[in-house]
């Protein structure tokens, strides 16, 4: 491609080149326009005076438009501590209670999709599938069930036994689960195939989170380790020691590389999953490695823009911390003991489940203002259907689930293949068959059917001798390429050519530019 500005088009050698240059310039201009396009929405936020208290919900409601009111509501329900989950578009909210209450509704219009009593304690839930056919996976006390938008039970996943946390990987169409028995499961929801299901042998996995950018499951262990799991490995791929005491909570941002861990010492630490090192939390430098969360119960939620929500005062209230800050942005009392927190994607709303029901509060600045594609609350039915089909076509294989720290990926250099080729060449050089092996003659048998047997054995050894001959030849060739010093280093005999070169005083052959250059010993 010609990388010349459009104004040089009159200096092009021909009309064809001028047209190509003009087209390239036009594409560059369009890309620049797209990249710098004024975004449609700007993020929310609170500008408060220094020293002012964090605002209450009533104060916020007085200062925002009426259209924001649906984000603030309270539901008093009786069936036990509730878990809440938003779907990826942010349009639907689902809840499940330990008393067996399962419900889903569109929270903006307060339109109930379904509500049922399953007569079993429900511990966790997640939306699965794409927005056009939303399905809800709920972890009951024994097995996991999948319900459709009308509340009909579609599937009972007996393999996901005693799951305490369910995760949805939208790009891989996988439902991942961590169980109290220490097992991990990855189930393909589009084909129904179990991608992986194994025992991690790291005790019950009660503290877990999903890293959405890579699809790995992170679990916190009582010995302070953070383990990263992938479906293809039955052992944690990465283990880092992140707390001096046990890990009480793990959370990840919906996008990006930050991992938040809450340790038994009540310290919140932020880690970079790419290099597995801590990220500093506060800007003022004081206690940069961690912040102290007194009386924090082990639930954490992170929003799209990095705001962190956690319960305080033993679940009696929730607190929202700004991204990279220690001073609370917002706090809100909870009618019951807090059991779950979830930020709504694409909106400045936070839902919390507690022992007496659930609630929703406004959190300015938590949602990503500009979505991409059809996965946002205002996309229509047709667009969601289209996005679902495209999502199925672009379904990634489970091999792509890998922690960023480990490296690899589709565009990575095939270092293993290169290493293998090098190892083969090295073996060809170093493995010199001994004389006795080369000159071995098989023992001749006698008796019935010995003629056939002798013939076969002879043929086999003939083939082996040919192989050894080839091996010798390739070693000679490689030694000749390596030159004088190489031959000496490898312990082999100098070839005639190498001897000639050394006698004539010529320089040894220069590097061939292939992998074999690595075998040439460096001049000391």
């Amino acid at each position: 491609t010609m990388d010349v500005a459009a104004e040089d088009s009159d200096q092009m050698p021909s009309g064809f080149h001028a047209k190509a240059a003009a087209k390239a310039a036009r594409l560059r201009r369009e890309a620049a326009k797209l990249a710098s396009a004024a975004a449609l929405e700007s993020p929310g936020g609170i500008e408060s005076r220094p020293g002012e208290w964090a605002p209450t919900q009533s104060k916020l409601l007085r200062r925002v438009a009426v259209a924001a009111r649906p984000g603030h509501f309270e539901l008093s329900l009786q069936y036990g501590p509730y878990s809440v989950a938003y779907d990826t578009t942010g349009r639907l909210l689902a809840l499940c209670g330990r008393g067996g209450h399962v419900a889903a509704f569109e929270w903006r219009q307060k339109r109930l999709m379904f509500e049922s009593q399953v007569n079993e304690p429900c511990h966790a839930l997640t939306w699965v599938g794409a927005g056009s056919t939303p399905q809800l996976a709920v972890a009951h006390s024994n097995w996991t069930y999948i319900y459709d938008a009308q509340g009909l039970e579609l599937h009972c996943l007996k393999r996901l036994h005693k799951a305490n946390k369910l995760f949805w990987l939208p790009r891989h169409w996988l439902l991942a689960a961590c169980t109290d028995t220490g097992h991990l499961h990855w189930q393909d929801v589009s084909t129904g195939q179990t991608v992986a299901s194994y025992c991690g042998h790291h005790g019950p996995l009660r503290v877990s989170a999903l890293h959405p950018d890579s699809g790995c499951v992170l679990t916190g262990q009582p010995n302070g380790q953070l383990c990263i799991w992938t479906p293809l490995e039955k052992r944690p791929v990465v283990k880092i020691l992140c707390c001096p005491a046990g890990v009480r909570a793990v959370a990840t941002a919906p996008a990006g590389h930050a991992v938040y861990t809450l340790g038994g010492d009540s310290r919140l630490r932020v880690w970079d999953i790419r290099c597995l090192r801590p990220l500093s939390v506060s800007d003022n430098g004081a206690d940069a490695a961690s912040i102290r969360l007194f009386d924090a119960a082990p639930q954490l939620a992170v929003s799209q823009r990095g705001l962190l929500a956690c319960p305080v005062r033993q679940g009696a209230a929730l607190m929202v911390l700004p991204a990279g800050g220690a001073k609370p942005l917002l706090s809100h009392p909870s009618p019951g003991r807090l059991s779950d927190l979830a930020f709504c994607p694409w909106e400045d709303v936070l839902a919390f489940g507690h022992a007496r029901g659930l609630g929703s509060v406004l959190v300015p600045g938590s949602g990503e203002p500009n979505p991409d594609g059809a996965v946002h609350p205002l996309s229509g039915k047709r667009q969601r259907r289209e996005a679902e089909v495209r999502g199925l076509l672009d379904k990634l294989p489970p091999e792509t689930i890998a922690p960023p720290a480990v490296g690899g990926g589709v565009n990575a250099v095939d270092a293993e293949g290169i290493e293998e080729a090098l190892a083969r060449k090295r073996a060809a050089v170093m493995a010199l068959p001994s004389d006795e092996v080369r000159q071995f003659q098989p023992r001749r048998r006698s008796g019935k059917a010995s003629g056939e047997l002798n013939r076969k054995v002879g043929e086999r050894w003939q083939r082996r001798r040919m192989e050894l001959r080839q091996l010798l030849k390739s070693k000679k060739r490689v030694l000749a390429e390596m030159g004088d010093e190489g031959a000496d280093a490898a312990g082999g005999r100098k070839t005639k050519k190498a001897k000639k070169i050394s006698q004539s005083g010529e320089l040894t052959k220069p590097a061939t530019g292939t992998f074999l250059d690595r075998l040439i010993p460096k001049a000391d």
Partner: protein
Amino acid sequence: CLFPVLIDQLNTHWPMKVKLLLRNPQDYLRETADDIHKLARNPAPELHPMSAETEYVRALNAAKLERMFAKPFLGCFGDQGDQLSRVCMHPRALSLCLSGCVDGRVAFWNIPRRSRVLQLDAHSGCVQGLCWHPEQDLFYSCCDTDRTLKAWRVGDDLTEFSRPVSQRHLDFAPLNLDHHVSKDLFALSGDAVYLYDSRRSDPVGQWKWGSDSVLQARFNPTEWHLLAAVTKDNALLLIDTRQREPLRRIRCEFRQNALCWNPQEPFVLATASDDYNLYSWDARRLASPACVYRGHTNAAMDVDFAPTGRELVSASYDCTVRLWESGRSQSRDVYHTKRMYRVFAARYSLDARFIVTASADFNLRLWKARASEKLGALTPRERAAVNTAEALKQKYAHHPQVRRIVQHRHLPKRLYQAQLEMKAIRGKQRRKEVNRREHRGEDKEPFVPERDRHVRGVDE
């Protein structure tokens, strides 16, 4: 107390600013039912994790879809009743072609309908040459048994004519025929290359090198005085009509069965050889072929360039038709059918989208040049999708999973075995050379590149 007043004043003069993210649905919905749906765009990479993997999956899907839609065979033209010897495309009309039969019949075909429009009992023996006049509605046919060259006129209403417009008796047995691009000249190949003017009865020029007959002579479409010819004694001749003697003779190892000039590059020609290869030659440097196209498992009988000059099609005695990209020695595609026997002729249509083949099972067949191409109008979105798929496949062409899908072609068992056999033969030859070189040394047994192995010599 002073303080409540102060606080009140502070509240009014310096109120807390709260901005909540609220979306206006009108920004996300289309205005009328005639508009397309709006799509939100944010190119920030945080919202597009695993984009390389997604692209790779799309490239893989594109490769798979291409193979799923690869159905190149369009149909048979109908049984001709006897073996077809020649196919000739009309120089100006897309939908017409001629075929010559071994029993002397010449048929006029409508390609889109795959139906025969007209049939003439042209000769008493095999029709050895067929070509159209470039401007007039006139075509020529020649036969070696009755040693005649006949000119036929076909009217607009395509009615049948039983007698030719003109007939010429030759004192040699013609083996092929070609008409000049613009002048009223045609070249007949028999025991020599004869140049005839349509207005004169005697040949205007005659060229010969050696004693063997000339199989085919073709005019260069750009250089009007240049002719190329292939002879029975494994030679390729280059002839300038302004000179008495041929310019060059390239002695090859095997017989070249057919030749074709590149319509876009004046100095490039391609030949189909008996040693299963095709060769493309640069007329400026004839010491060795510019490219060796290897793939057929039996003699290559015919070769034709696409009108774009970028692609070749070859017909082979091994019952396959192969398509090649100019300059790449591995074939892009291979066409075969259970019923197609030895293929003796293959021609590109004028728009480079279709291929017509004539084979020994008495049939003409129509194929697509691009096997997975959609025939018919493409909407702009379809075209964009096709272009994107093509670009993705090229980007990941080196990746093993994509490459194996893109390259793989199913072959019938006998053809596959023949291919393996050729591979084994070639491998054996190469290994032997390597061993010889190791034993005797580089100077006594130098490495000869593929290109230099096929030419015995060039004579001037």
